[in-house]
């Protein structure tokens, strides 16, 4: 069994047992390759009332390798309009790149993204289009 499978099994068991933090729910975890979670920002924030969906993709080396996380953009969900979020759902976050470490988990990534949205005081006018070749910041 791949390393990622065992670890994700554990994480799933923890979620089922302890539940998820407020504003985050598990939408789907059918396999150990792709998970969907929803994120809402509570309280009086710029994103009040908006619900977003995150798509996690894991490879066989998780948690040594970081999961690929992006906002779902389809008929039901839109990407939030945020300086670090592109219009195609791509997220610019250090914890998904150079700051990733195995001490983080799916839930902790969701919480980090939730607080990233909550800390945004001014909503940018238009979403940033994703330009080919743009590097992470």
């Amino acid at each position, binding site marked *: 069994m791949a*390393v990622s499978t065992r*670890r994700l099994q554990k994480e799933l068991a923890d979620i089922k047992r302890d539940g998820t933090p407020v504003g985050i729910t598990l939408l789907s975890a059918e396999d150990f390759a792709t998970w969907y979670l929803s994120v809402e920002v509570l309280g009086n924030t710029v994103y009040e009332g908006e619900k977003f969906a995150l798509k996690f993709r894991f490879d066989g*080396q998780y948690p040594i*390798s970081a999961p690929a996380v992006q906002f779902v953009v389809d008929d039901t969900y839109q990407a939030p309009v945020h300086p670090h979020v592109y219009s195609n759902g791509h997220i610019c976050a250090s914890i998904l790149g*150079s*700051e990733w470490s195995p*001490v983080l988990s799916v839930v902790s990534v969701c919480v980090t993204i939730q607080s990233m949205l909550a800390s945004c005081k001014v909503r940018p006018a238009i979403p940033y289009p994703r330009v080919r070749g743009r590097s992470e910041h």
Partner: protein
Amino acid sequence: MATVAQPQRVPTVDDLRVKLCYICREEERFDNPEDPPRAWTHPCSCTLVAHESCLLQWIKAAQQDPGKANNALKCPQCGATYELESENPRILRFLNAFNDALSTAGKVVTVVGIVSLATSFGFTIYVVATSYGAFAVKEFLGEEMYNLLLTDEPSNWPWHAFIHLPIIPFSLILSRTRLFDSFPLVPLFLTWSSSPPVRTSSSSIASPSSRWRSSSSAWPQGSSSPFTSPIAWPPTPFMAMVFLPFIRIAYRRLFNTLTKYVMGTLPESAGGAAGPIRRVVLALGEEGPGPLRVHIGANIQQVNPQDAEGGAQAQQQGNEGDDNVAAAERTLRVTTSSLGRFIGGALLIPTISARMGSLLYRLSKHSSWLRAFLAIRDHPAPPAPAIRLYDGPPGSNAGLLKQVGSGMVAGLHIMAGGTPTWNAADPVWWRNAVGLGLFVVAKDCVRLLHLYLTKRELESRKVKSRSFAGVDIRELDLIDQPLHPETAGAGAGQGAPSVPADVPAV
């Protein structure tokens, strides 16, 4: 009996009741160890513990990823640095150091290699440009001046030649764009009309120059100053350059009026009405030169002129309608042919002006007025005297102010009037410049003629109409129906004269 207090032992990872690896999230209870047992480690100052194998795997993976390499040995929670122990004999350290040294050397080689490639490429371009520049100077100034100023031997060239000559081809090309007009050539002529002649052992003016040197201590007879007056004919290149922009603007205005009269519309490149070129479309794969584009539009009749001489087809398309719209969307279409015509035409300018100049020279043999205008002397000019900076005999002490003053006067005279050596030579450049101007005028007129005829052709077009011969007459809804479909069909097939009178002739 009092119990003796045991000294407190500092706990280690093995004293934990339950160990939870932060990487794989597996638990191990102290009373239910794994079989075979796995090593655990507490590598930092917080409470995170991990399987040694999990942690080593993480460290190895992180060190190989360039983004994460800096954080590989740091605890994600408390930031403490992990310490590793390994078998690291000297030979391994040496091999690693050697490998790193080779990598650094490789980087240096790459950078140096690329830089030297670029430099040699640039140098080749420089050599080509300089040779072209020398050729251009020879064509434009004539052989005599060329041998005075440059000669064919680069070792004779003044230092500024090596700067000015390679600039020439680029400034020629740029002078055809709207941006630069005549600007780049100015410094060229500035320096050269005032530079001393090249001293060579076998220059064509060797004897005059030696006579010139020997007479340097004497004033020339009958002139109060060694300089020619600034208002001289022909004008020096400096003066010509000063007046050129005005001449150019005046000519353009005049020609626009003519175009308006002939074509009934202003060309797009009129004055400042042209907006900035927003898009340059590189259409290098396109076929052929394409026809001239003449719009006969609803509101504004716009004609696409052909910019600059040599017939560059940098076709500029404006939009009909608003001035704003027209200014906003101007595309410059560059095709293989337009690029070649533009650049080739620019580089041909010296040759064209030389040919025109010699044409004018031959024509001037028949007209004394032309000879005067072109300042062609019937007899060789006397040798030019040396330039003296002071009034008064040499060796006299002149005050500093006087020196500065006479230096400035000298400079002004040289700029405006040219050095005496320059003036003594046959002014080939002047007739070349005049010839070039005439060529430009002629070219513009020819272009205007071309546009006018094209416009006429477009306006005079008609489409030829044919009869319905060969079409089944039953498909046609004619005003007078034929009496017999069969005979009428046969009749129609035979041509007009045999058709019955009541069938309308087409």
